[in-house]
């Protein structure tokens, strides 16, 4: 380039680019990793806000995540702090969860469910009453059947009024096994 070509305005414009700040990728993408739980190996997706999706670690995990969240899913260097311990004790109340993708109704169902202590169960009707929608028992069942973060939010502690266990994302046998582990009276 000869001196005639050197235009200070062009030189200065060309010096303006800069990298996006560190961490911006994690506002766009969700991270995932594997974690061991008493009921087997799980896949866990989480954002900067908290745990967003928990499912068995199998080939359905990524497609199910994509279908539900429509966000990029990238491997994480580590699992969220305290998750492995919470899965082992059954007490996930201190974990951060990201329920942004859930609707308002499901979010309130999940928040009420979260308050059920380890080793105790509540009927679906209790959850419905707790969120001020006593007639919405069936809708509570549906909201729990699609709980994005089972185990972290203990939907296995919600059972039928007649004492039978009802459905569970990981299957009814797993629900029974989990409640047995917690010494719940069922």
């Amino acid at each position: 380039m000869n001196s005639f070509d050197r235009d200070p305005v062009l030189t200065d414009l060309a010096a303006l680019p800069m990298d996006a700040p560190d961490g911006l990728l994690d506002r766009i993408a969700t991270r995932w990793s594997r974690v061991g739980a008493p009921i087997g190996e799980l896949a866990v997706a989480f954002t900067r806000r908290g745990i967003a999706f928990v499912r068995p670690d199998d080939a359905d995990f990524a497609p199910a995540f994509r279908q539900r969240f429509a966000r990029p899913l990238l491997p994480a260097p580590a699992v969220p702090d305290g998750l492995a311990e919470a899965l082992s004790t059954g007490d996930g109340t201190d974990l951060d969860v990201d329920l942004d993708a859930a609707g308002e109704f499901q979010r309130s169902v999940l928040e009420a469910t979260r308050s059920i202590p380890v080793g105790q169960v509540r009927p679906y009707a209790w959850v419905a009453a707790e969120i001020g929608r006593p007639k919405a028992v069936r809708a509570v069942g549906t909201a729990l059947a699609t709980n994005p973060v089972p185990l972290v939010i203990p939907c296995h502690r919600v059972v039928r009024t007649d004492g039978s266990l009802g459905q569970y994302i990981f299957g009814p046998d797993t629900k029974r096994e989990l409640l047995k582990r917690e010494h719940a009276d069922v």
Partner: protein
Amino acid sequence: MAARQRHESGRVDDVSNDPVAEALAKDVDAGFADLYGAYQRLVFSVTLRLSGRRADAEDLTAEAFLRAFRALLGYDTDRVRALRTRAWLMTIVMNVWRNHQRTMARKPPPGDIDAAPEPVDGAESVEAAAERHDTAGRLAGLLARLPDPQREAIVLRHVVDLPVGDIASILGMAEGTVRSHISRGLSRLRTDAVTQGGLS
């Protein structure tokens, strides 16, 4: 890898040689990390110089990449493989930018983005960084006062160095129009730079 590929229909298209498109076609999640790595600087620089605000540039960058990912979920593999990812992504960026402008229409115009100090490059002296910061701040201020079409064309051509042909397709205008926006914008920047006491 062949740069051009004949379709069954006999149509000839530019196909790939775009490693990011290949990665996306293979695995949309892993490919997204490549897309972000390849273009985060481009997208952030453009949105920063168009919006004039760092926080807006972060929001616009995040939104553009997320939209790009969601668009990819609706494409079949052949379409993904045939993408010219840079121009495609920049078209999305400009759409996001226009939507943002519409929602900001009643709010004040862009101000001085370089009010907050830039992180200092380790290899650069504090004095050089201060001088660079000052120049960048003044120039960004002058850019912010250009009419939108001139600012957009200049940012795409001279800040992030895209070819005029790509800019024409990204902005949806003829190459001649792009050149004329660039040339008018540059003369105004030069005049303003002189009246404001020079840049470099």
